[in-house]
């Protein structure tokens, strides 16, 4: 629940956005980030953009999340 995902704003109408990251697009609101503009990279959490993020950080986070997702899908086994 702590985790927020960097994503690029690809559509924006008022505070209703469509964001794009890791091969997916989904709806998000920019209500909490009123200065957000089309094309910008933002951190999205629970459907809301909460801050801006730079390219480098976004890339690193996407890699990390891909690893964490892999971790969560690892079959349950007590081993290293």
């Amino acid at each position, binding site marked *: 629940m702590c985790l927020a995902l960097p994503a690029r704003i690809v559509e924006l109408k008022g505070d209703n956005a469509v964001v794009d990251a890791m091969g997916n697009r989904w709806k998000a609101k920019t209500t909490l980030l009123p200065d957000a503009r089309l094309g910008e990279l933002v951190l999205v959490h*629970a459907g*809301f953009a909460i801050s801006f993020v730079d390219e480098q950080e976004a890339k690193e986070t996407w890699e990390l999340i891909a690893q964490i997702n892999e971790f969560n899908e690892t079959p349950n086994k007590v081993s290293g």
Partner: protein
Amino acid sequence: MKSACKSLGRRINIMEVCGTHTVSIFRSGIRTTLPDGLKLLSGPGCPVCVTDQGYIDTVLQLADRSDCLIATYGDMIRVPGREGSLETKQTGGNVKLVLSSEDALELARSNPDREVVFVAVGFETTAPATAVAVVEAAAEGIENFSVLSSHKLVVPAMRALLSEKNDNIDAFLCPGHVSVIIGYSAFLEIVEDFGRPCVVAGFEPAQIIEGLGEICRQLEAGKAELKSIYKAVVTERGNTTAQEVIAECFEPADGYWRGLGKIPKSTLKLKEKYSRFDALERFGISESPAEELMGCRCGEVLCGLIEPPQCRLFGKACTPREPVGPCMVSSEGACSAWFKYGAERVSKR
């Protein structure tokens, strides 16, 4: 880090407050590279894990009502209550998974004959989303929407931990995305009132290691300072728009945390002007903490007092497939992380 352990001549205990830090630390194998004298404690930074049993049972009660539609984030769905979980109740059609509070509001719009109850769990990172939905519901006059708030505040929990539960914590690795909202300056009071170094780091392994290094540098020098190395997204003041909407809807109230008990002014309760959206009021429920589940030691894990393998149920009666407590259910729970990655570490200790 080695130098700090040596010069202090005792074990150093650093608490990683955030559940995602726990997972990242395990996943990247950082634990195996740390010097023996440095111990990482899991903290109460998993909102699902610290949600007390009473709240969970209240949610399940509401899920049983045919006039209710429960809207919840995914990580709450498998948490066991006294009888079943939201997952087991899903088959009744009363439980809907949502990715955001806006989805919950949309459910209310498209199901005017049902009472939509949003299971609002999360720290300051998630609270603004709930607040925005409440403000919108009020503006649109949506009557069939309410919120069961279990939003929790991180800093009061850190204070309670140090004052009452576990003062054997030398420093904190502070949560990254909570800090995006509240600003890293929020942790200044922990530094000033308790003399513990507080370092905000991101989740990337290099950041975590740098954060731990900074903490050790401070400890060795006998200093306690506030520092953020998560420069990409965390600012000193945080997201003030988000803080304003939280303040518009919510006020701090006393609340129950699994493991930490009652902590003053540590949860968010809807203000009087929005109280009609408070599910507790709407359904006439008075919340009280229920007893912890038999044998479950999640509470001690959350305070960093024990490590998951020290719980008798760990890996036996309590596994991710059949969890007893939330620390094993949640993807950010310490027990879940230990189960998947901890066996090696257990044998090394």
